[in-house]
């Protein structure tokens, strides 16, 4: 596989957006897409900038037949800008981008769906704008409400290491030298399920649309997040919450998803045998779970308020 210059030819989509555009904040543009026109709006949030909004490709065509779907490339990948410096990549910046996309698309209220880091800006958005968020789904949430996997705390991100074994690849120096190998390793840990070659290839391809320098900036931005106050953010979330978490998630332990469900009064669905991105690997089950959740919100709305 060669490192692409610019975007490689995208494979044919099952569905193309009905509307698309850019939102600019402080000189940084993010690119959004709108599909379908049902009710309510399902807002598929970006995750870490290692991939872009195409990671929702298994959800968009299905949800767009039932709901209105909103998605955007988060800063740092896809058709979004790539500002330099960690301060451009805090969870507050992602949340503000998402809020701007809601406004730009005249979306009064939406159900949020976020994967991994998407849970950080998703919870922030739900906590700060309860009138705009009808419900939230978090898949494999990367939240510091429970300890990380021990093997991910062994190596320094910033120091030069004498090894590149395993998670030692999660290191800025390794990224700068061996970016594609890092991607392959990382997505191998995302997709712990057997027979996930296509899902891994997709993600590596999207990862190659950004660069190690940008990812280093996102890493700095996210490590600067005020995570110590995250529990407080969770306690301010009032909308119904659904958490999906694989019990073989090698990136973020199930305990983090369970803790987020508990902290938000949400429902936890444990996916036995699943890794970190079940929406890509077990899309039928995830689509149905999200659809049921969204429909239950619709039925609840008129008389619970």
């Amino acid at each position: 596989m060669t490192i692409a210059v610019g975007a490689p030819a995208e494979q044919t989509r099952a569905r193309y957006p009905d509307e698309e555009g850019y939102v600019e904040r402080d000189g940084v543009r993010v690119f959004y897409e709108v599909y379908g026109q049902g009710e309510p709006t399902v807002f598929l949030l970006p995750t870490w900038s290692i991939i872009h909004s195409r990671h929702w490709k298994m959800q968009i065509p299905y949800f767009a037949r039932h709901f209105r779907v909103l998605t955007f490339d988060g800063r740092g990948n896809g058709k979004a800008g790539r500002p330099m410096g960690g301060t451009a990549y805090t969870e507050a910046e992602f949340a503000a981008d998402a809020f701007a996309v809601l406004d730009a698309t005249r979306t009064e209220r939406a159900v949020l769906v976020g994967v991994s880091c998407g849970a950080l800006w998703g919870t922030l958005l739900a906590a700060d704008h309860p009138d705009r968020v009808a419900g939230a789904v978090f898949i494999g949430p990367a939240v510091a409400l429970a300890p990380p996997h021990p093997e991910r705390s062994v190596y320094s991100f910033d120091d030069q290491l004498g090894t590149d074994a395993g998670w030692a690849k999660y290191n800025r120096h390794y990224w700068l030298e061996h970016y594609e190998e890092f991607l392959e390793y990382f997505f191998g840990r995302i997709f712990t399920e057997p027979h996930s070659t296509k899902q891994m290839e997709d993600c590596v391809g999207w990862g190659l649309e950004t660069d190690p320098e940008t990812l280093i900036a996102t890493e700095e931005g996210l490590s600067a997040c005020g995570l110590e106050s995250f529990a407080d953010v969770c306690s301010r979330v009032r909308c119904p919450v659904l958490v999906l978490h694989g019990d073989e998630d090698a990136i973020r332990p199930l305990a983090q998803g369970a803790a987020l469900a508990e902290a938000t009064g949400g429902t936890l669905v444990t996916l036995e045998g699943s890794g970190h991105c079940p929406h890509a690997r077990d899309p039928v089950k995830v689509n149905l779970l999200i659809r049921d959740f969204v429909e239950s919100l619709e039925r609840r709305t008129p008389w619970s308020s």
Partner: protein
Amino acid sequence: MELVSDVAREQTRARYPDDEGYLDRDGVKVFWESYGEGPATFLLFPTSPISQSRLWKAQIPYLARRYRVLTFDPRGNGRSDRPPDATAYGSWEYVEDGRAVLESAGADRAILAGLCDGGGWALMLASTHPETALGVAAIAPYVPYLTPGHPNYAQYPFEDPLDTDQGWAKYNLHYWRRDFRGFLEFFFSQQLPEPHSTKHIEDCVEWGLGTDPETLALADEEAPLPWRSADEAQAVCERVACPVLVVHGDLDGCQPRERAEAVAALTGGTLVRLEGAGHLPQARHPVKVNGLLRDFAESLAPSGAAQQRWTRATKRRRRALFICSPIGLGHAQRDVAVARELRQLVPDLEIDWLAQHPVTAVLEAEGERVHPMSAELANESGHIESESAEHDLHCFQAWRRMDEILLANFMVFHDVVREEPYDLWIGDEAWELDYYLHENPEEKRATYVWLTDFVGWLPMPDGGEREEFLTADYNAEMIEHIARFPRVRDRALYVGNPDDVVPDSFGPDLPLIRDWTEEHFDFPGYVTGFDPAAFADREKLRAELGYRPEELVCIVTVGGSGVGGHLLRRIVDAFPEAKELVPELRMVVVAGPRIDPAAFPDHDGLEAHAYVHNLYRHLAACDLGVVQGGLTTAMELTANRRPFLYFPLRHHFEQNFHVRHRLERYRAGRALDFETATPAVIAQAIAEEIGREVDYAPVETDGAARAAARIAELL
């Protein structure tokens, strides 16, 4: 058509109320019942006093496992009063009765469900007291003036004498007074236009006979209507603020579809149209209606399960669910044998059992895993016992009168398999499973194997034309089910051989049972659950069991259901005389779990036990068996080549026709008629048969292995 007498004994319910009582409004007593508890309350309105609260019998046991369920009898029928004044039957009175039931139960809000009139009353309550209504589920709602009524009612005047009583002319006061039952039979056959609805119609007629023509005329024709214009009807609907579910069958002969559509449109509700359904889908299509009510309630009051679990397909263990009929312990023994062989062939297979007492006693003794939801099953053996008289069990009618229990138990099964993925379901005469899967084929989500040892309902001679018609109707429905949905049964196994199938026909214009069965079943042979070769050394076996060589051992056993108490006592009465004829006689009576062995007299040489583990070993060791006409025990004796006397239960078509046919093929056993078998006759027969050499046709010993092999192929 002969139906029930005016005050028929109520058939066994699948669930009885936890609380019941009367409330009094303006001197009118209204009888209510309360079942279960949960995160929400259902108030199930009655309908016009043409019926009773029992019309919800297919819903109550299911909903009450999750929610609190309140029902009440309408004023004019059931256990509620029958005030003699038309104004007491105005719609608002029923609405207020419902509100009073809620209040007295301490329920602030409820899901208000109703059928026909009851659907209208539920909407009226939600409209005028929105704080009481979490939601409204209205089946075929009657809302006067909202749309034109059903044309059926416009054909004849109600109060004028008519010169005809054909068709809807029966909806006439004078006809009601002449032949109220005839009216009810006509009316409900119109409201249940689906084929094969005999039992549902009988139920409705029975409930209708709980009132009388004068009361019904007061309530349905003379009571004041709640309003007099379409505008007022619309306004009531528009004021309903809660979520509304409307259900309507497109063959409804009472409420027009336009009315259901209007209710849904004006309330912003959802209309579910049931194609091919009549006016009473809650009775005729209970699985579908229960699912709709459950989903509706779940959306209104989420059960709040904070944790769920789903397992990726390829990570799942291989699992089977064995559903074992509790009627007769024989099924348990043979199913355990099949399960054992199946594990040999598919070693990683985990088998759970959905079963109830007394089958669970056998399963637990065998170390099998009984699914905990088994505890939710409504008791079938108790019902069968309640339907039996002295050595008499009209098993076809008893089975029909078990419809509520069968449906309730299917819903338990349905809950289990909604939550837990099984690869395989095996139903041994699990009638509820087989019937409702064919009625709701979309609910099939595993490989399904059906086992039975008889095919075809047969009429008893004294049942007359009605029973001939009914058995043929049930057979026809089964034949249609299988012709239309051959995919439901992945395999059907007849426990026996083609020659064991009776030579009769399914009924007029229906195929011969044997031809049809050979076409639709596999024949693994008889499944004994043991290997007779293991008992070839009878002397050793007798020594193990404590039977002395010089004793002539007579084992008396009548199965686990308790129906055989009278026979047991008759045989015990024969003991003294038999002992005189056969001085070496030792009689061992197995009373079963439902008959108290302490109730038998004390005689030297006579002993009684409640339960004997591995009874088949005792039967293999005995010198004579004395049994009912049940298949399993008779075939165990046949396989072990023991002489035996058997007494088919009166009116038990399976024992009188199917089993007897099979035993005659084996030249096995001596049938005695309970009517004529006095203790003296029995004593004489014991003396003639005990220890006799027999020339039975051999019984195969590999039935369980062959059945398991046919099942394992599907995994």
